[in-house]
């Protein structure tokens, strides 16, 4: 048992930490908000660094890294709320390979030449998947339609539905989608992909919370009122201490979930779901406290807290209602409700 990064993982964290710090600045985040929540230049740099397909098996044209290694990169991505659909893409890339999609498609996605995503919600009777994460920019959309895992390849709309978190959400027509897998195989592959998405987004939330808390500490040390730093007021300290305690717990649970999912352990899906729910809750709590302790400036568009505040709300909701996720968790743990 080793609950810290290995030396290699530390090196990966530093390399991608530098890349995102350089290329996904708050300015680029804001610039992407003016468009559809996507920065194509940043995507090209990630492609050059081999990130989009890093956790796809080598035989499928990927980098052969583990889900845990990918999570190390996702943590850095989350810290910078970087406007590229890294998690959806990476999870979909793994799904396509394991569900036996055409080789040419798998390799084009693994390399990042095509952007892929998955629609976590149900596909409507008219074949439309609504508010698909990264739907505005994805060339490839995988979904669960009835008992099948389906994949559609189409030109992305390039425009997002305007939303709180400036995420590239868009409706996608999947009526022409091809079936990749059916029945039990489809269910297994899809559940695994969703568990991967949840565990990785939980890690992203840990990155987001860690970064926003660092902003909170820096600001409250430097901002003076009544002749002292506001960070010396115990009320402020205790709010930040509670938020960092929850965020640290969320980070540990998130990486524990990734490890369990990666190892194919029976409790993987349960931990992934729990980690996401708790990660989102603590991420929102951290952004709320840090916004509050910035006073009026926290509410201003000029400061970066608001960028984090909105994404902390948005990331989880891409999955649907949080209460529905809790209900699924309860069904698995407690048995279904009586009719």
């Amino acid at each position, binding site marked *: 048992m080793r609950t810290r990064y290995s030396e290699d993982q530390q090196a990966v964290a530093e390399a991608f930490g530098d890349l995102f710090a350089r290329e996904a600045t708050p300015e680029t985040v804001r610039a992407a908000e003016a468009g559809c929540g996507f920065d194509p230049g940043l995507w090209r740099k990630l492609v050059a660094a081999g990130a989009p397909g890093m956790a796809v098996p080598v035989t499928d044209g990927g980098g052969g890294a583990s889900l845990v290694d990918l999570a190390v990169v996702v943590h850095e991505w989350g810290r910078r709320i970087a406007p590229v659909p890294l998690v959806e893409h990476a999870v979909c890339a793994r799904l396509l390979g394991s569900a036996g999609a055409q080789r040419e498609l798998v390799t084009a996605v693994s390399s990042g030449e095509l952007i892929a995503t998955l629609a976590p919600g149900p596909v409507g009777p008219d074949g439309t998947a609504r508010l698909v994460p990264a739907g505005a920019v994805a060339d490839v959309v995988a979904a669960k339609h009835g008992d099948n895992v389906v994949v559609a390849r189409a030109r992305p709309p390039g425009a997002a539905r305007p939303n709180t978190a400036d995420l590239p959400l868009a409706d996608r027509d999947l009526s022409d989608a091809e079936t990749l897998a059916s029945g039990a195989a489809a269910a297994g592959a899809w559940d695994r992909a969703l568990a991967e998405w949840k565990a990785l987004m939980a890690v992203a939330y840990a990155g987001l919370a860690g970064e926003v808390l660092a902003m909170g500490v820096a600001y409250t040390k430097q901002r003076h009122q009544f002749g002292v730093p506001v960070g010396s007021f115990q009320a402020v300290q205790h709010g930040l201490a509670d938020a960092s305690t929850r965020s640290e717990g969320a980070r540990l649970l998130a990486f524990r979930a990734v490890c*369990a999912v990666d*190892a194919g352990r029976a409790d993987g899906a349960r931990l992934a779901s729990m980690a996401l729910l708790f990660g989102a809750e603590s991420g929102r709590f951290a952004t709320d406290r840090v916004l509050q302790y910035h006073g009026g400036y926290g509410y201003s568009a000029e400061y970066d807290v608001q960028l984090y505040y909105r994404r902390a709300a948005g990331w989880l909701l891409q999955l649907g209602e949080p209460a529905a996720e809790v209900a699924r968790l309860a069904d698995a*743990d407690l048995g279904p*409700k009586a009719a």
Partner: protein
Amino acid sequence: MDFTMPARAEDFRAEVQQFLAEHLTGEMIAATRDGTIHSPALHRAIADRGWLSGAVPAELGGGGMDPVDLCVLLEELQLHQAPADALGVAVVAVSMILEHGRDHLRSTVAPRLMSGEALACLGYSEPESGSDVAAARTRAVRDGDRWVINGSKMWTTLAHVADYVLLLTRTDPDVPKHRGLTFFVVPLDTAGIEIQAVETMGNERSNATFYDDVVLGDEWRLGEVNDGWTVMKTALKYERGIAGGQFPSPPVIEAAVDWARRARRADGSRPIDDDEVRHKLMRAMIDVEVCRSFAYHTAALASEGAMFGVEGSMTKLFASESYKKHCAWFLDMMGAEGLLTHDDPGAHMDGLIEEHFRHAPVTAIYGGTSEINRNLVAEGWLGLPRSRS
């Protein structure tokens, strides 16, 4: 990075479970209702297995159990609600004695504590000082090669069953408070000691202890004169390793699930089919997994030889505050029935949830209050300026 328990630790878990199946009885758990969360038979059995001395670090002459195994032992003890308050105290006391004690304490007291034959208790808190533990006023005055101790301690838990108290005293009142403290290991049968019960809202008895011209040879001194703060810091360090407290909630959650399945509401429906109830149960289980992640993380750090500090404060803060919340939720869930105590024959599971509800607040007070832990996180983790307001 790998959060999976090593196979060795899982084998050890099975061994602990087997041990508890053999040695821990329902009567032992019920007997703690007299307020003493200690079972002599269980304590001896744990010591006989070598787990008490095992928990003492190897470099001090203990068994040096791997911290991951120790974590598993503490997890299982808590999940089974084993009354083991004296275990952690004994391990801390032995560690302090082996690190700072001289021959007399090392050869007489330490072996008796390690074998489970004798018990220790901790005399830090006083009527006028708790969080500010260094403000202790109990006075020890040197008289030739003897010491004379006068004063009183509050919350000397287990003193009424223990053989020794690790006593924090003031030996120099004229220097800054941290520099005038000295520790002693005091046999509780020494003349001049009085022990009075302190009853609590929970089923937990503590004590006020009084020291009236207690005369002690210098061989009972622990550490250097006026260097008691160094010894105190050692105690806090060892306490982090052995302090369980990460798993108070699971028995409450299990009881709540059981009740929610059995109970029927006026309309005939089962609470377990109510979304609100299901939500609270799952939310509580999420907190338990957070606690487990903290526990495994600190154990893994200790196992690598990395010293952790603030992580321990975070774990305790999160576990105790979430436990309080869970107890309140599930008490409410049961309505008036939740109020029934174990004295009522109809109380669900002998009033387990009700008992935990009364116990929970203390976990956010003893062993460092939640406020003190938040201060430690703010200063030690976030690097915020020290606050005095």
